[in-house]
């Protein structure tokens, strides 16, 4: 899919940056004429992906979170969230609703929410090397900014 615009940034896995990541995505996505519901869905998915980095990828340390946002042809927004943390042993298990290694403060609903709110969610992970989550959502019946 042809790329029309993109932006990359990196921040430390501090929980205060969860709100920053949502805001940054909302600013970039403003180029696509999204409805409030679509924008809310994207912000929620981003919040889940970034929280996973903070809680699971770097449980006892602070590490870098890389984000890449792209607008592709046909009004598709792509969000990639990448960490160099501890990785996921069993990705299929991690994607199951209510599965969590985060104790009862976490609901185990992160991937379920990402999958409900985005069109596609791809997860690549290697234990000890990190995880990359790539999500896409197509904005319906609207055109991308030129």
């Amino acid at each position, binding site marked *: 899919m042809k790329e029309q615009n993109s932006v990359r940034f990196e921040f430390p896995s501090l*929980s*205060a940056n*969860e*709100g920053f990541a*949502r805001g940054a995505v909302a600013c970039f996505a403003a180029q696509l004429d999204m*409805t*409030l*519901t679509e924008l*809310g*869905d994207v*912000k*929620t998915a981003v*919040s*889940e992906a970034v*929280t996973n980095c*903070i*809680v699971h990828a770097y449980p006892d340390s602070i590490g870098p979170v890389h984000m890449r946002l792209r607008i592709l042809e046909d009004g598709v927004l792509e969000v990639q969230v990448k960490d160099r943390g501890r990785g996921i042993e069993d990705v299929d298990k991690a994607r199951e609703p209510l599965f969590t290694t985060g104790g*009862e*403060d*976490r*609901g185990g*609903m*992160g991937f*379920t*929410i990402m999958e*409900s*709110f985005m069109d596609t969610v791809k997860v690549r992970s290697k234990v000890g090397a990190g995880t990359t989550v790539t999500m896409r959502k197509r904005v319906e019946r609207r055109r991308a900014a030129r």
Partner: protein
Amino acid sequence: MRLTSSRQGGKLIFALAGELDHHEAGGLMGELEERIEAAAPRDCVLDLEGLRFMDSSGIALILKLYKRMNATGGRLFVENVQSQPMRVLDASGIDRMVAIEPSPAPEKK
């Protein structure tokens, strides 16, 4: 995130305003539990009228609050849920356990 609480008969009402994510949820449950201990209410209401964003951290919080109230035979009501938090709650299926009521005047657009 702003938390205010008030008493209405046997109910303890918590009003949350702002954004509820993992960052904000951190100290919030402890604060809610403390206020429940102090007030010993029969039931508890979570008023989300001012909550404009919530992710799955909110689901975990509501489940914990539900279990806390259940342990003493009380109920939990979640009220005035705005559209974005409502979509998250819908996706979670939590309404099978907890009484959830959307905002009476949904946001336009």
